């Protein structure tokens, strides 16, 4: 049975069904008020407030704006959608469909990933057209968006795995996690400017690494090596994903 589960035919079927879930989530949840508010509007105004207060050149903050946008957009879909699906009992459709729990979780994660990466194009274009941001290393920029999008989407899936039927509860928990991760990262204050203890704290936030990679991709100096940024983002993504899958399975066992 394990060999059958890992056969290319089965994996192909499960991947297609995960993509179906992702497509459906994008169509249904992208325009939901919590997603628009916390995924698009909130990060934009948060960024503006900080950079106006700092009175520094905005162009230096463009990688940070891209990073915040990917962070908020990618992590928003699952916590906004899953409680709603539990409430309307549509969530049980996935559980009784021919699809393993891991692939269902992957489908949910892909929705946030695609949404976050798509949204990141907006601040990128704002930077290029409005502030002369130059993409000096397209490869690193793409890697940053993909790895960051996946990592933050997995974080959203982890919060969405919380067995609640109230989207407001999940969004509260999400923001409770997101805001500290944002403020302790090197987005608003660069790592070089931070005291040693704050740099140690920043090293815990996955945003630090996504921002570092984005800075490298847009012609700014990085703090860590690009491979370390990438590795940490992927490790965080893997951890968030499998903890989320474990919680989903636990909920199923207890339901």
């Amino acid at each position, binding site marked *: *049975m394990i060999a059958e*589960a890992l056969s290319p035919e*089965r994996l192909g*079927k499960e991947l*297609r*069904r995960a993509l*179906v*879930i992702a497509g*459906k989530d994008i*169509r*249904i949840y992208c325009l939901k008020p919590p997603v628009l508010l916390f995924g698009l509007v909130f990060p934009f105004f948060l960024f503006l407030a900080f950079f106006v207060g700092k009175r520094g050149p905005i162009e230096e903050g463009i990688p940070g704006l891209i990073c915040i946008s990917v962070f908020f957009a990618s992590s928003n879909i699952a916590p906004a959608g899953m409680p709603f699906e539990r409430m*309307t*009992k*549509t969530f*049980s*459709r*996935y*559980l*009784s*469909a*021919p*699809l*393993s729990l891991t692939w269902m979780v992957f489908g949910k994660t892909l929705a946030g990933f695609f949404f976050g990466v798509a949204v990141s194009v907006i601040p990128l274009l704002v930077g290029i057209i409005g502030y002369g941001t130059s993409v000096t290393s397209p490869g690193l920029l793409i890697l940053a968006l993909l790895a960051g999008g996946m990592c933050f989407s997995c974080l959203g899936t982890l919060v969405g795995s919380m067995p609640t039927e109230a989207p407001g509860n999940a969004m509260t928990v999400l923001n409770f996690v997101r805001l500290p991760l944002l403020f302790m990262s090197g987005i608003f204050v660069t790592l070089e400017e931070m005291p040693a203890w704050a740099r140690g704290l920043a090293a815990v936030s996955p945003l630090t690494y996504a921002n570092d990679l984005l800075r490298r991709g847009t012609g700014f100096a990085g703090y860590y090596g690009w491979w370390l940024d990438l590795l940490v983002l992927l490790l965080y993504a893997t951890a968030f994903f499998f903890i989320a899958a474990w919680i989903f399975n636990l909920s*199923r*066992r*207890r*339901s």
Partner: protein
Amino acid sequence: MLCSDSPLKGVAGITARDDFSAIEVRELRKRYGDMTAVDGISFRVEPGELFGFLGPNGAGKTTTVNILTGVSLPTAGSASVFGHDVVKDPFRAREAINVVPEVSNAYPEYTAWSNLMFTASLYGVHRGEAEQRAEELLRAFGLHDKRKVKVKGFSQGMRRKLVIAMALINRPRVLFMDEPTTGLDVQSVLSIREMVRDLNRSGITIFLTTHNLNEANILCDRVAIINRGKIVAIDTPENLKSAARRVQAVEVSFDRMSPETEVEVASLAGIKEVSRRGDKLRLLTDDPSAAVSALARFAGERYLAISYINTPGPSLEDVFIQLTGTGTSTSRGGDR
């Protein structure tokens, strides 16, 4: 009622017989901490059967269905669908089934058509086949005109029909239906019962969970009664009623009925229990003949005219009350 060109008749692939039972449950158990919701139940459902699963609120019906359909995992025991274990081989087991849950869980933001296409994709039905099947189902369920309308504008009955159509898009061999007629108007109830019969005639095995004893009586080939997590009886509705024939029923109606009449009738010799059914009283007795004589005497003494009297025998409801020790409830409640 389905249209005469119903796509549910002679559906390919679903009438095939296997060596396996459609559903086989062995010593299935589900515990929540100290509370046992399902307590070592075992039963089989044969291919093509319309199997009723009855029980009072909290008896363990929905827990059992959730385990069989993959929504929940058992604490112990096993269950299989056409030989595929629902825990060890869930992919194959779920390919053979679909579910009509108690709540009509179509996506309200999607149109009827999009809901059907999404379900088809989730079950791996190819696009062309899915479109053809969706057309057929929408016509059969009288929803074709509404195919481009978002589900949030649908009535309860339309949503229910759509959810049943969604459950048929992958041509399941086993269909789980959890309280399919609850909360619907009379016309929709009759229409959906007719659909259930048609689906079963087309070869689909149906596992029907219901509170409604009359529904189980008129639809099901066999019925299992579950109470406090244990199965207390499995048989055909008629056999279950025969087993309860030691208690007979008499129905009577007088030209004038008051609450006192009910109390007085209950005190007549040989009457074990009286319940009111609309303008009739239903009496349980060991000796219907003596009960009829007593009722005639009672009517004469009170100057009442008997407008109706019948000895219909025990109903499935009487059997249910005997086996579970509970009255039937028409109230809706969360079952475990």
